[in-house]
């Protein structure tokens, strides 16, 4: 079975700082990868996803993530964070193909951005 590790549980940044949230997974086959975001008081929503093709994925609100297969990683980045990026971020991985449809989620990273 696959597993997902998000190394940073809590991240505190000032506005305009750069962000990188780590996500590593363990699974030997091909995978689909996701980042979800949960803003305070709001429901979990998709930030970006990788299924195939270009390993650098652009998402909403200026976020991007890079799939590095050799490192089993899918780190989330944003060059300049805003106060409104304060939220909880979840990485998820799912084996691709073969009818698999259950992703495994990481424990989440709480991001606080100070104005």
């Amino acid at each position: 079975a696959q597993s997902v590790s998000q190394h940073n549980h809590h991240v505190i940044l000032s506005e305009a700082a750069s962000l990188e949230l780590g996500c590593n997974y363990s699974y030997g086959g091909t995978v689909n990868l996701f980042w979800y975001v949960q803003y305070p008081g709001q429901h979990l929503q998709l930030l970006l996803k990788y299924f195939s093709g270009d390993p650098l994925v652009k998402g909403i609100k200026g976020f991007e993530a890079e799939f590095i297969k050799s490192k089993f990683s899918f780190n989330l980045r944003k060059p300049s964070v805003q106060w409104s990026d304060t939220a909880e971020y979840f990485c998820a991985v799912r084996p691709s193909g073969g009818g698999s449809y259950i992703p495994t989620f990481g424990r989440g990273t709480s991001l606080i951005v100070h104005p």
Partner: protein
Amino acid sequence: SQTIHQWPATLVQPVGSPLSLECTVEGTSNPNLYWYRQAAGRGLQLLFYSVGIGQISSEVPQNLSASRPQDRQFILSSKKLLLSDSGFYLCAWSVVLGTHTDTQYFGPGTRLTVL
């Protein structure tokens, strides 16, 4: 467009009382449906998933159960709540595209407090 509803939004129940949480999806047919529990710092724990009416798979043995009486309705139940059942319950849906399952989309969640 597709939408997912959960109710109630919040619920306070005494220990030993029954539970019924409802999730409905609009704008899609034959979705895969999921129940998750989200605990602070522990990510999302998959409780149940369903690929069709009356088809329920349980991931975690506990005093909760799930049912899918209609194509777009998913219900989470308990006969007797425990204190440990307190948490944030999320419903999600996804669709199958050929042999490939698309992204999960989440509902607004139900905050359950068992006293």
